[in-house]
């Protein structure tokens, strides 16, 4: 599996490690593919945000770039009618569940959602869909970070980071629409054994976990 392979992304010839996920091969070469949940060091991708769809020649339908390994001669297209449609709907769904208050959000201008919207010409309003605000309480009990679950897109980057470099406090709880990032027994962060390293705030792409200003 080691060694280099040659693939094309949007017509651009790219040399990359065999098995390297298309998402990283593209990003390394300056080709943007929308993504929220992927972490390069994580070798079993979550594949949960469903935004990094691409077309690969010979495949029946769009696939997620974060799970597809590069193989010799692969021809990838980051845009197509089907891809654009899926990304648009997926993004709309995420926006319908994300409390949008960019004006006062610490992530304003560095937010992954804003970047996706800009790159793909999408709107931050959920368009065809109704807003589903969950109205959960904001947790500001921790010393250095503030957690607003209403902004959370459930990408899981904070959970992964907390496990790797933090105190392993964060995890997922509940299921379906109620799924959320929280602590053991849903204790407030300040009482949860959080070490206050704030690695999660750094990992969060959307400002759900952010440093206190």
């Amino acid at each position, binding site marked *: 599996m080691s060694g280099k392979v040659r693939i094309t992304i949007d017509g651009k010839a790219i040399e990359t490690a065999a098995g390297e996920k298309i998402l990283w091969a593209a990003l390394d070469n300056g080709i943007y593919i929308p993504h929220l949940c992927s972490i390069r060091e994580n070798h079993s991708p979550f594949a*949960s945000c*469903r935004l990094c769809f691409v077309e690969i020649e010979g495949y029946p339908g769009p696939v997620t770039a974060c799970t597809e390994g590069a193989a010799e001669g692969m021809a990838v297209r980051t845009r197509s009618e089907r891809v654009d449609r899926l990304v648009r709907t997926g993004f709309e*769904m995420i926006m319908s569940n994300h409390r949008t208050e960019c004006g006062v959000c610490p992530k304003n201008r560095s937010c992954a959602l804003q970047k996706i919207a800009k790159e793909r010409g999408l709107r931050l309003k959920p368009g065809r869909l109704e807003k589903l605000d969950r109205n959960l309480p904001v947790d500001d009990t921790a010393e250095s970070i503030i957690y607003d679950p209403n902004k959370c897109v459930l990408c899981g980057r904070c959970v992964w980071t907390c496990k790797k470099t933090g105190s392993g406090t964060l995890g997922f709880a509940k299921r379906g629409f109620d799924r959320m990032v929280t602590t053991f027994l849903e204790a407030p962060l300040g009482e949860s054994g959080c070490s206050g390293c704030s690695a999660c705030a750094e990992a969060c792409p959307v400002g759900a976990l952010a440093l206190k200003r």
Partner: protein
Amino acid sequence: MNANKTAAMVLDEIRAEALRSWEQMRQKTLIAVGAATCGRAVGALEVAGVFREEIERLKVDAAVIEVGCMGHCYAEPMAFIFKPGFPGICYGYLNEGLAARLVRDFLVDGDPCVEFALAADGVNDFIPTFQDFPRGLVEQKMVMEHCGLIDPENIEHYLAVGGYGALAAALAMDPGEVAKLVKASGLRGRGGAGFPTGSKWDLCRAAGEKTRYVICNADEGDPGAFMDRTILESNPHLVVEGLAIAAYAVGAGKGYFYIRAEYPLAVERIRKALDQAGKYGILGKSVLGTGFGLEIEVFQGSGAFVCGEETALIASMEGKPGLPRHRPPFPSEAGLFGKPTVINNVKTLSYVPYILRNGADRFKETGTPGSPGTAIFALAGKLVNTGLTEVPMGTTLRQIIYDVGSGIAGNSNFKAVQIGGPSGGCLPGETLDTPIDFDSLTRAGAMMGSGGIVVLDENDCMVEMARFFLDFTQKESCGKCTFCRLGTRHMLGILERITRGEGRPEDMDLLLELAGDIRAGSLCSLGKTAPNPVLSTLKYFRDEYEAHIFEKRCPALMCKDLIAYYILPHKCERSCDACVGSCPVEAIYSNEDRIKVINQEKCVKCNSCLVACPPQYRAVVKVSPPDLAAGKEKENDERKSQDNH
């Protein structure tokens, strides 16, 4: 070759003993009470108790055993009485009094009470057999052959009817040959997707790792499906044998039954079966003396529908949250604890002993070229005869509904059949002649699924049906991926809006768009198939959606917000106050002619008055849209004032 002979010989020794006690049992009178969950729910255990008491009291030489379900769930509690000199006679719709009478009249006095007999098990002059039923012509039993006829908690019964012979035969073959045979049979996974079982086994065999696992997936969770439960409860050893053969074929030393905890009787019976098989040397360090070692354990799933998905099932067994993950790698390559794992459905494994005993060609004689063998369906809904049936693949829906199920219950007409559970779809009358197999059902817009069939009549609203299933998948979604977590939630919101009468003209297109994207974008099959109930109802019953959205009318009179209750003045008996008494909110009053009238403002649409109105009057009706009722009342008032003038 020596070892081969041993397996069969070891089995013969065990079986000789089993046959002796089986023969002994059949020499005297035997009462076999159907005591699977379906029977127990309507009092089978009480009936069995009465049989035992009466036999004891009247000093009759007879034995009572508890067996599983034959599939005739509609007639439960049922019992087969085998009395020497008579054919075996099956009695249905039993109760405690009837049981006592059968002991007195039949066992003591020799009158078989044919008026209560449902069927006999051998051709005779006075009682028809189950084969004489219309369904007898359609049904063919490969898996359910012994269900309801042997004691599931007694391994000797299974051995006496030829049990574990297939395992012995498999052990005499090279494991690769066993996998080849199953592949040649064309057996497709009965869990829903229809993946060729032999190919799955081959993938696992080809995997490098030597530690391998086999898992029987018994996390049956579709609303209206109970095939796996019934098989596990009625013939657990059959499934154990199938799993043991699978383990031998792929070289697994460890097997698991993943049974949902809501099936306590199935768990208990499989545990007993594993115990007994271990004691008889059929499982354990050296299976039937061949040196092939196999341990099988039961793992109880704790109630998440999504854990029927194989990667979620594995995650939950590993102690992690039951969430699906991206495939590949498939479990056959990297499954439980990262080792190659074969996961097969209960029914799939139940066919394996049949294939080993009869060969691949014999198996392929039944069914269609693309889907060989039989299919097992759970019949539920508005049918006369609900229950379980096993029919060849390619049988039409019409045969299943009208021949097996005896048609629609009550004075009602067929509207649709929901097949394949929350991943399936609703098919209308036009499609009744569709042969049932994996491919033609998918083409029609439904899905084989695990085999639940729910029959709907004209009183069932198809929009409400779609809403019900979306509500189910939305609640059962694990919440990991965007499309399933939020997409199903949005679809449910739209459907709720429509059933409330707040539908918008663009809603149908929006539903179609969302459905297509959820299907293409979701991570696992739960999400990918979740839109099917909506897509199929929109395809076949678009007029009902339109009636809800544009006319604010529910044609089936089911959606509460779109109906009103109304008392027909010319049918109201006047002196009867049944409806008035039944109303919990005092919304019904008598007008000056003593005709009952419903105060629409107060009415909570609980349906009590409609039930309470005596059948000879049937004065209470539902109307839709709801303002029809108010309009009619106004009309009545006007007519009355004209009469007065």
